[in-house]
């Protein structure tokens, strides 16, 4: 985000009042609920990741790094790491690319732009599980129905292991491109018209104006969009659970589906939590790197 609007200098008697910050009590209730529901369970989760807990009773012992060693030797789980990363890269690239194009399109002075914005954003508000059920039909292999019927293809979108992961990415992009669009749109609305007019007078074409005026000023929107879509992609669960449940074979298995199955199908809660910890570390590492690089770009832009 930019440095924010500069505040007028505080003067005289006012200074004491404006410097006085609200007391801690303002944050205390939120902190209490947050600690109870998020922090305490997450810290306990980190502890469980080093045990062999089966989820029943108090019967558990510390096993050191055994769960992580199991993970390294578990071909299916290692494959799911690859799938998670591929899926995330695909979603981040396409969702933001499409989102940016849509935002540029509906930012122009079109008669239908208000309606178009609502249309592109509306899938965001529908439950991911329900969207997955809808797309399971859109992706059905019948050549006369769904996407095949529309395009005249014979693809088994969710049944062919070499296609299934990209099909999942497709439905996620369809659902969330509008979310990226809205954030880019907010960025575009912050670009002053005078800058465009000045560039036009200097003889800059449409592309040049985008490259040298719009794009640098979009930096905060780019940061937020990349962060949210990366985190969303890495944590993706509902859509896969409802559409393929990790199949065919292990083609769409990701860290989220693996940790779900290890806990609720095989009762290996300790191992499942270890997988969750690996996922958390992935998300944290990627977010940190993104914040570092993107923030730097914002400052220099």
């Amino acid at each position, binding site marked *: *985000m*930019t440095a*924010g*609007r500069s505040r*007028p200098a505080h003067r005289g008697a*006012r200074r004491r009042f*404006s410097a*006085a*910050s*609200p007391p*801690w009590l*303002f*944050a205390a209730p939120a902190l209490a*609920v*947050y600690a*109870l*529901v*998020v922090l305490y*369970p997450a810290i*306990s*989760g980190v502890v469980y990741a080093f045990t062999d807990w089966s*989820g029943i009773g108090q019967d558990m012992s510390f096993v050191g790094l055994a769960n992580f060693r199991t993970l390294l030797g578990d071909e299916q789980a290692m494959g799911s790491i690859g799938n998670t990363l591929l899926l995330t890269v695909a979603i981040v690239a396409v969702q933001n690319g499409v989102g940016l194009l849509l935002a540029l*399109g509906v930012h122009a*002075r*079109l008669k239908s732009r208000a309606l*178009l914005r609502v*249309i592109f954003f*509306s899938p*965001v*508000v529908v*439950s991911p*599980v*329900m969207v997955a*059920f*809808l797309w399971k*039909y*859109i992706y059905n292999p019948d050549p*006369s129905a*769904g996407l095949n*019927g*529309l395009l005249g293809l014979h693809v088994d979108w969710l049944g062919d292991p070499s296609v299934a992961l990209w099909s999942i990415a497709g439905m996620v992009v*369809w659902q969330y491109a509008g979310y990226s669009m*809205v*954030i880019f*749109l*907010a*960025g575009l609305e*912050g670009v002053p018209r005078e800058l465009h007019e000045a560039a036009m007078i200097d003889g800059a074409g449409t592309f040049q104006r985008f490259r040298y005026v719009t794009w640098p000023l979009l930096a*905060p929107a780019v940061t937020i969009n990349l962060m949210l879509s990366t*985190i969303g992609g*890495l944590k993706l669960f*509902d859509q896969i*659970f*409802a559409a393929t449940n990790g199949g065919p074979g292990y083609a769409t298995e990701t860290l989220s589906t693996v940790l779900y199955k290890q806990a*609720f199908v095989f009762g290996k809660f300790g191992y499942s939590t270890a997988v*969750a*910890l690996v*996922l*958390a570390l992935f*998300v944290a590492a990627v977010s940190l790197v993104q914040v570092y690089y993107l923030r730097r770009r914002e400052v220099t832009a």
Partner: protein
Amino acid sequence: MRRTFLLEIVMIAVAVAFLFPVYSLVSLSLKDPGQISRSPLALPDPPTFDNYGSAWSAAALGPSLVNSTVITVVSLVALIALGSFAAYFLARVQSRLGYGLYILFLLGIVLPFQLGMIPLYELVSDLGLIGTHTGMILFYTGIQLPFTVFLYTGFIRALPREYASAAQIDGASHLTAFTRVVFPLLRPITGTVLILNAVFIWNDFFTPLVYLGGSGYETVPVSVFAFVGQYVSDHGLVFAGLVLGALPIVVVFLALQRYVIKGFSSGLKG
């Protein structure tokens, strides 16, 4: 302008392609099984509304709607109250500790909830809140606080301090200055917080499946999930159920949608 006209045509074409899944959803929900197998892509001819009646009762949507509404509304009130108060402190405090606390809240956006999933289940169970509305409300309030605090803090940072200071010079306490002066100024971002959290809470699937499954307090996505599993091959019926399940939140969104873009643009400037 010719170019604007051309762009308009292109964007409308994109929107039409984009709406193909929605067309399939609605048109299949209005067909009987014979029509679906004969002409899956054609318009329903004649449309039948039988699927809607059957789906409504088969998915037990009435009680789930009540459960979802209670859980969503109470969680939203808690999130807006707790989140805006905390953000007011975090946006105004000028100490390292305050900044550290802000980062601690942001950490919650990054952490996958699965990490704490099992310990949290134990905790909720120890409190006797499995299969209750209270358990779900507590969960959603906690899990969505980071994002709420993030949005509010960004917005409040961009607000001039002078509004609250003026009230305090007139003798108002911090609490009065916030509730009477600052909070009303937060309306655009409160709209955004409201919609985005409502969408998340209403649509969340996994947690209510684990915490509420079989309790009789199921939310809409859980009921629809069970219903789809049961009638998987009858697409007309299943799609009518999906339309009914999605309708409430879509209507709320359409009523409040102008806040989404406004709220985002003010949040970004913050």
